[in-house]
């Protein structure tokens, strides 16, 4: 009797094993057939952080990518990431005083429903962008008036910061929308837009731009699909369909790329890239314009000692920037001297930061802390551009220990970090990605002048710490109001030097961007605004 059961178990086990082997082998045949059929489809792996698909509400890294594919702007950035090229505007003029911009719309430009792109659409777009008062509206702040009396001509008047309007109008959030369709679906451009506009839900399922692609479907935490706009007025791209799959883990992205499931993986970090052995995968490393930075908050209420200029300088001098690149990026990056990237106006020719422990200790002693002190670092527990913030802060902790500063690390979620920005974060680390080619964004955000974001944050609970105000920077900002592009570059350079000497914002490295893709993908390059210009891509 026992032998019967013994045989039965053996038979059952044998049947199970054979079934499993058959299922897996036969499934392999089908998966290869699926891959061969996608020559005009591009599949991309990316950890999507989309917060909206409404171009005037969206504000995130993935948003720039997808909004940039669905909406065209008046002008765009060239392949050198510097030259402004025509897009919906075939040409433009700037008045002598730099306050009036006249754009002449391309007569062939049409939206995805076939209706022509007219000046009323540009006016509606800009006014909605301003009046919704969402994140990206800061780039439309300088615009005081939009004249759309001529359907083929748009006249934009600015009130301040004139020299960077062209760069700002190339941002994907400035994408021109079909005003008639948008209005019919709840979009409002008037001053009461924050209360009256109800179009966001509609934009999550539809797009109303003029670009080569339109939104096919969006499933949060899963994928977004774009398909070719059949009515596109320009040269149709080779790729007819783009599918961006949400793949949170870089290792999973690398696996999908190696196995051919995806054509491009957008966020593989340097360490993961080293594990890729597949000869059909191309890995190109090139400088980017992102950077991570350590920030000191002199206005924090829980400081053991005040973060005076000497103390801040001592902290900055103690950091080993070259060592930081090795530890966090395996050397795949650059030391960045100031918040303005080297290739941006005013960012070049600045002194490189160097660790100087002797001077750091001397400054601490002069500040009255020869034996160091304790310092709390509250930072978001995340990885940004392939850099783990935990690893960075551990390195900072080690460096500062050499001058007697004992750093206590407290990783938190971003939501918790934000709730504590009112004044209980003495030190933190954050990141910045450029939205367009221009340096005004750095000044508006990082300058220690009342009205900028970091002046508010660095002041802690007071939000207005007078001793933090940098009067030289305030004077430079006044001069920028009327500066030409050449004059502005010199002023930004002065700004950069001031920001270096403040030691409130300390850049911790500029990670290289890794372009990782299958060998049969052509036309890959880095675009400062959309990361990858998908309409230029084709497949062999």
């Amino acid at each position, binding site marked *: *009797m026992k032998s*019967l*059961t013994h045989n039965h*178990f053996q038979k*059952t086990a044998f049947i199970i094993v054979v079934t499993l082997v058959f*299922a*897996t082998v036969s*499934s*392999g045949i*089908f*998966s*290869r057939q*699926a891959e061969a*059929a*996608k020559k005009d*489809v591009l*599949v991309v792996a990316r950890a999507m952080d989309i*917060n909206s698909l409404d171009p005037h509400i969206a*504000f*995130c890294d993935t948003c720039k990518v997808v909004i940039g594919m669905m909406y065209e702007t008046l002008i765009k950035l060239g392949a050198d990431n510097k030259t402004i090229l025509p897009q919906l505007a075939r040409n433009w003029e700037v008045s002598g005083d730099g306050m009036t911009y006249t754009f002449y719309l391309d007569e062939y430009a049409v939206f995805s429903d076939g209706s022509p792109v007219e000046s009323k659409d540009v006016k509606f777009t800009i006014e909605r962008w301003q009046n919704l*008062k*969402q*994140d990206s*509206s*800061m780039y439309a702040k300088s615009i005081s008036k939009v004249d759309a009396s001529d359907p083929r001509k748009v006249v934009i008047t600015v009130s301040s910061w004139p020299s960077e309007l062209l760069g700002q109008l190339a941002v994907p959030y400035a994408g021109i929308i079909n005003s008639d369709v948008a209005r019919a679906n709840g979009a409002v451009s008037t001053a009461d837009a*924050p*209360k009256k506009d109800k179009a*966001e*839900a509609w934009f*999550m399922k539809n797009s109303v731009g003029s670009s080569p692609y339109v939104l096919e479907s969006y*499933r*949060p*935490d*899963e994928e977004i699909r774009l398909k070719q706009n059949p009515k596109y007025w320009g040269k149709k791209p080779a790729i007819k369909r783009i*599918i961006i*799959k*949400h*793949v*949170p*883990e870089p290792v*999973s992205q690398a*696996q*999908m790329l*190696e*196995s051919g*499931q995806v054509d491009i993986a957008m966020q593989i970090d340097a360490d993961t890239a080293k594990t890729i052995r597949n000869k059909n995968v191309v890995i190109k490393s090139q400088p980017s314009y992102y950077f991570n930075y350590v920030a000191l908050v002199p206005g924090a209420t829980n400081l053991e000692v005040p973060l005076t200029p000497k103390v801040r300088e001592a902290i900055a001098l103690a950091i080993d920037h070259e060592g930081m690149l090795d530890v966090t990026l395996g050397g795949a990056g650059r030391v960045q001297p100031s918040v303005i990237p080297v290739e941006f106006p005013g960012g070049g020719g600045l002194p490189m930061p160097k660790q100087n422990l002797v001077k750091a200790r001397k400054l601490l002693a002069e500040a009255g802390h020869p034996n160091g002190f304790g310092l709390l670092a509250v930072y978001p527990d995340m990885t940004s551009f392939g850099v783990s913030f935990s690893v960075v802060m551990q390195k900072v902790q080690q460096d500062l220990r050499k001058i007697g500063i004992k750093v206590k690390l407290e990783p938190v*979620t*971003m*939501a*918790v970090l*934000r*709730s*504590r*920005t009112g004044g209980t974060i003495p030190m933190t680390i*954050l990141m910045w990605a450029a939205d367009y080619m221009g340096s005004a964004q750095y000044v508006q955000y990082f300058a220690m002048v009342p009205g900028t*974001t970091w*002046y*508010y*944050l660095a002041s802690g609970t007071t*939000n207005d710490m007078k001793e933090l105000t940098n009067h030289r920077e305030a004077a430079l900002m006044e001069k920028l109001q009327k500066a030409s592009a050449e004059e502005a570059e010199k002023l930004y350079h002065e700004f950069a030097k001031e920001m270096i000497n403040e030691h409130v914002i300390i850049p911790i490295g500029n990670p290289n961007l890794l372009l990782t893709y299958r060998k049969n993908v052509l036309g890959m390059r880095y675009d400062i605004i959309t990361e990858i210009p998908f309409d230029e891509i084709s497949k062999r």
Partner: protein
Amino acid sequence: MLRYIIRRLLAIPLLVFGVVTICFFLAHNIKGDPLSSLLSFRQLGNPEIVAATKARWGLDKSLPEQYFIYIKNLLAGDFGTSFRTRRPVLEDIADRLPATLELAIVSLVIGSLAGIFLGMLAAYYRNQLIDDGARLFALIGSSMPVFWSGLILLFIFSVKLQILPGPGRLDPVTDIPPYVTGMFTIDSLLAGDIDKFLDAVRHMILPAFVMAWSMMGIISRIVRASMLDVLNQEYILTARSKGARELRVIMNHALRNVMIPTLTIIGFSFAYLITGAVLVETIFSWPGVGYYAVSSTRALDFPAIIGVTIIGATAFLVTNLVTDISYAFANPKIRLGR
């Protein structure tokens, strides 16, 4: 028994309401700023934009006011709009719950059958090589972190051998089947699309196996221990003495008594699979409720957090009820409601 079931069913909404209330007030008192999902860090210094955003999302009202508005909407079937996805929470959950259920059901079936089989095997061949092998296999599955085993299996089967697909529910290029249940296997069968059905099944093999493997350990241990106890009972000896085939002895006499504690574990495992599979969902890019729950929690997305809590609480309550009912079928001695 029917009265017992009805009483339990009527209690579920009341219990869920209690859970929602506790969750609502707890979530709003956690340290953290829900504006982090609604606004970027750059706008923190702009009081005008912060105020406009709070007004738009009702965060400028007092907590009791927010609570009553939430309950009023909830009773009308409106779970609110997710701060993170900007879609109705109910729509988000309707998309994700079938994905989780599909994976959880398949994992549960595989894990339960395999766990029971391994447990029976281990008990029958106690202290022999088969016993050691079965227990080792199950123990490895329970001990290994699922994100690690998931990545390793993906590497072996998807990247190196290329006999199984990578993350996702379908091939990246394949369109999803017309929505009926939200479960791609069933929906593709209903649409008559066999290729899509097979694609969905293939994509489920690895994540389901990883989840099932993690469950097998405890199920097989329970079964083994119970089986060893039951096999020594006198009625088993009687059955054998009467000439019953060994297979009949095991399946008809022993297994039924082993199933009661096993069903309890299976019931809890199912509820856990629905809400706790976030690591598997992350590694395999499986857009389920677990990943949604964790992402929403990290972002302090209150409407989504409470929406998922409602689903999770309901899942546990219903699963407990089903488990209790199945006891009565597994063991006629148990009469529910008495």
